[in-house]
């Protein structure tokens, strides 16, 4: 029986080539898009799932409280883990990771600036699954100044030589240390939120960062993870944490500090930051899931519509089968079977399409996805399941509909496409266009929003600014000389330095005491003279820092307008303030200063956060970046000149630079990728919808051949006939608009919540989306209509 069905299915495919092509191609494009997005989602969801202990590992989150403000951060301090182990029962193991990002590592002539040099406790290999290819993970990190490296890193420094027992020189600022390589890591899976090239023994830090760092520094680039015993409720431990924190943890300037536990499986998506490594956005993932479901649904609807539209030509077969003894369930099975055949054929084609689309898709999402269908059983299972579900879903309605035909009606030629079938078909077409139009509108909004963010008035000029990190005290000490040397080149327009890269890294914090109030928490950027000038920040009142006024280097302060509001000052110029830290309840004074100028607000954070109050203060010891404005028409010369001078100074660190604009755009990479995937999905959704409409129109025209012939005999013109055929479809698309707009509106509102600065939602985007849908369907249907309208009525009527 099954063989019989298969045969009929394949012969049907062969006999109706165009129809089959539309059907299978549409379905396979839908499947391919769906699969790519689903694979991407699966990959994202798979983060950190390779750790055997994943259910019992938690990231420790620091909760800082000041009045109503609750601030969660995942960077802690080195003292936390030992204190937790000592004072809390119910922790099996704890691991600290510390990473300074940007040390100079060398072996002989080979020297690189490394951003992923981790210090970690020995227990790292017991808690996490990072197996070693060479060396013994039980002892590899036992001794201070031992380090394990990844295969890739080994290749970089040692080529094909065995790296074991070789020495790497570690340089942070001006201090140098020798590390012995005690192990080589097996390849770290790409879906690990921890991303490192080196893991060094934690005890080495005592010498490198000092005793204070190890025992007193509670806010260092250190991340703490704990492993709880199997079956132990994390809630029980969390109850103890407020009391523990109160007793053992320094509050610094906060009213209270506590800790929470974040399960490992949530770290990738929900860690509040600062991120230790990779992080994802689950909201984007949610939207992507919807898009992929839309695309697949649109493809399924095509399939259903085309199958039922074609029912006339299958009706005779169905009637006959019933006459010679077929019962309804057998026919249902036959049609579902046929649908499954189509669906699996489409899946085979989809696999090729996935391979074809993958490079482009990877471009959009930042090249993360590698698909090895045969190796990855999850992917394979997803494909089989998709094909199966699509086959059943797409086949069910046609199967039920077709098998309900009464043989007598069919054989006597009394079959008219029933009203209900036409209605359902119309509903499905409307549904399809609702999804397409909503996708068009949403992707336009997403595109607008991202452009808006990128081109927004920042309050400073990010263009033609080159950023060079200052990683070393020797650079910092000779900064003034370097700056003056650089400025001798006329192409270098301005040079400054600061503690942060605006729009990219984060500002420092400090406490402020003014005449009116104290303990005001305020962001501060430590800058060089010329900061305002180099970044082209606008001065509202007062003056900029000046080299001619010697006290400026120590006492002058610039504040922005947002800060004025916080202080409650009308004018602000000339106001005195004391700046200090608060540690262990004690006040540690830092500076005293006078406000000499008010600058306009500028966006020193990324644009998902609103403008914040900020102080600018000169402090050369805090310079981590130098920023250089160069002549835009002499870019290459400028960079060469910077490089040449850098080399003349013979710093340990090699010359490296980025464009501020690129760095800032990188911050939006996630959003950019998301927008690209949305656009991509929209494009295919529309294409598949049109493919379906094309098929449907051709059947509709076929069915109305006689009507068209008669109308033509009666004197209808070709344009009139085209209008007649189009009007049916246009009504549907117009109706779809009405349903699609609120849907798109809701989706966009949700998306925009993510940003502090949002575009306004303009009505023309909806109109545009509707217009595009109408135009595209007009074009598709007219193509068919024209063919029918130009046919000679003599032929079409004789055919009847």
């Amino acid at each position, binding site marked *: 029986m099954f063989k*019989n069905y298969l*045969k009929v299915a394949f012969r049907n495919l062969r006999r109706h080539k165009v129809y089959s092509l539309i059907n299978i191609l549409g379905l396979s494009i839908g499947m391919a898009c769906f699969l790519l997005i689903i694979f991407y989602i699966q990959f994202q969801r798979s983060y950190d799932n390779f750790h055997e202990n994943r259910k019992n590992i938690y990231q420790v989150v620091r909760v800082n409280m000041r009045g109503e403000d609750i601030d969660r951060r995942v960077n802690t301090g080195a003292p936390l883990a030992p204190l937790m182990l000592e004072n809390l029962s119910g922790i099996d193991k704890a691991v600290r990771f510390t990473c300074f990002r940007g040390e100079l590592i060398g072996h002989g002539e080979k020297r690189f600036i490394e951003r992923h040099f981790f210090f970690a406790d020995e227990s790292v290999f017991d808690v996490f699954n990072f197996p070693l290819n060479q060396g013994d993970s039980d002892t590899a990190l036992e001794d201070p100044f031992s380090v394990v490296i990844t295969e890739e890193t080994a290749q970089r420094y040692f080529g094909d030589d065995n790296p074991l027992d070789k020495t790497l020189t570690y340089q942070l600022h001006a201090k140098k240390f020798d590390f012995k390589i005690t192990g080589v890591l097996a390849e770290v899976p790409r879906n690990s939120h921890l991303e490192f090239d080196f893991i060094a023994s934690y005890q080495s830090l005592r010498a490198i960062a000092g005793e204070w760092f190890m025992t007193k520094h509670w806010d260092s680039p250190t991340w703490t993870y704990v492993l709880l015993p199997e079956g132990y409720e994390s809630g029980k431990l969390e109850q103890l944490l407020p009391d523990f924190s109160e007793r053992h943890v320094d509050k610094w300037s906060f009213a209270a500090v506590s800790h929470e536990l974040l399960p490992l499986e949530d770290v990738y998506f929900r860690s509040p930051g600062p991120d230790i490594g990779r992080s994802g956005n689950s909201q984007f993932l949610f939207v992507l899931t919807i898009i992929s479901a839309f695309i697949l649904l649109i493809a399924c609807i095509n399939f259903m519509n085309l199958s039922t539209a074609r029912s006339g030509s299958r009706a*005779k077969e169905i*009637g*006959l089968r019933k006459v010679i003894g077929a019962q309804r369930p057998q026919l249902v099975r036959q049609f579902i079977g046929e649908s499954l055949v189509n669906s699996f054929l489409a899946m085979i084609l989809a696999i090729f399409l996935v391979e074809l689309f993958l490079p482009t898709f990877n471009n959009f999402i930042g090249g993360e996805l590698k698909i090895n269908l045969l190796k990855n059983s999850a992917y394979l299972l997803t494909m089989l399941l998709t094909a199966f579900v699509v086959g059943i879903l797409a086949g069910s309605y046609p199967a039920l509909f077709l098998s309900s035909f009464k043989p007598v009606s069919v054989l*006597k030629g009394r079959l008219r496409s029933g009203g209900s079938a036409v209605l359902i078909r119309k509903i499905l077409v409307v549904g399809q266009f609702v999804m397409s139009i909503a996708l068009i509108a949403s992707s336009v909004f997403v595109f607008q929003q991202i452009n808006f963010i990128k081109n927004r008035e920042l309050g400073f000029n990010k263009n033609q600014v080159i950023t060079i990190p200052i990683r070393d005290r020797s650079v910092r000490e000779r900064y003034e000389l370097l700056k003056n040397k650089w400025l001798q080149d006329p192409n270098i327009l301005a040079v400054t330095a600061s503690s942060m890269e605006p729009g990219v890294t984060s500002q420092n914090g400090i406490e402020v005491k003014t005449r009116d109030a104290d303990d005001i928490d305020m962001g501060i950027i430590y800058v060089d003279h010329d900061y305002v000038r180099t970044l082209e920040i606008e001065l509202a009142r007062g003056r900029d820092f000046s080299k001619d006024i010697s006290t400026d280097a120590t006492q002058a302060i610039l504040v922005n307008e947002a800060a004025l509001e916080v202080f409650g000052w009308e004018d602000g110029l000339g106001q005195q303030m004391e700046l200090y830290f608060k540690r262990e309840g004690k006040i540690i004074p830092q500076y005293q200063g006078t406000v000499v100028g008010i600058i306009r607000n500028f966006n020193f954070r990324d644009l998902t956060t609103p403008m914040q109050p900020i102080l600018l203060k000169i402090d050369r010891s805090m310079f981590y970046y130098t920023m250089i404005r160069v002549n835009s028409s002499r870019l290459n010369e400028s960079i060469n000149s910077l490089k040449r001078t850098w080399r003349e100074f013979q710093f340990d660190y090699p010359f490296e630079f980025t464009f501020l604009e690129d760095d800032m755009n990188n911050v939006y990479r996630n959003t950019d990728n998301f927008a690209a995937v949305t656009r991509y999905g929209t494009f295919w959704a529309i294409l598949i919808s049109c493919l379906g409409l094309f098929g449907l129109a051709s059947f509709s025209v076929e069915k109305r051949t006689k009507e068209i012939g008669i109308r033509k005999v009666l004197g209808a013109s070709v344009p009139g006939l085209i209008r007649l055929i189009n009007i049916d479809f246009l009504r549907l698309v117009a109706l779809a608009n009405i349903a699609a707009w609120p849907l798109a509106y809701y989706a966009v509102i949700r998306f925009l919540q993510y940003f502090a600065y949002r575009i306004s939602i303009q009505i023309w985007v909806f109109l545009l989306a509707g217009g595009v849908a109408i135009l595209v369907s007009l074009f598709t249907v007219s193509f068919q209509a024209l063919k029918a309208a130009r046919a000679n009525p003599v032929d079409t009527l004789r055919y009847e």
Partner: protein
Amino acid sequence: MIKLVDITKYYSSGYVKTFALRDINLEVKEGEFMTVMGPSGAGKSTLLYILGMLDTPSSGEYHFFDQKVHRLSEKQLSELHKNHIGFVFQSYHLIDDLTVYENLETPLLYKKVKGAERKSKVAEMLDRFQVVAKKDLFPNQLSGGQQQKVAVARAVITNPKLILADEPTGNLNTKEGQEIMELFKELNEEGTTIIQVTHSEKNASYGRRIVNLLDGWIVD
């Protein structure tokens, strides 16, 4: 074998009822070869479809052996139909996508006949109806007469007690028509009950009894 009591069939469209059959009382004995005649629109085909259980009467009783057909569910009807009744149409109605062999095989598949038995039955039919050479051809590759032979073969392959033929020679030339009628005669002599609808007096002469229909009434 068959007893119809006061069978009426009408179609309603809007407020108008169109009668196809009115108060039909008819008895058919096993082994009969009956011909239904009458002008177009007299209700011949409707009667045939009702007899074949493909259509249900609006009122009246239909007894098939000891079964009350008018009381059966659709599923039971279809079961009865598939075990006892074979159909032959004017326009052959073979399944276009299946070869001659597969067309013959399909009714057996629906009766869940096992593979080996199916093969031998199909072979037997191909042989008996002299279409062995055509077994791998599709219907549109055959002449009308050949198609109708296959259709008859398909109707008898399940050994039905009753064969219903709706103008079986209507689309055939004289010689082909004769061949088909000879086949029916043969089958009837072997014990199959046959009811045919025809316009042709010549075809009617193959049967032993004629029922005339006019405007839905039996007129004798």
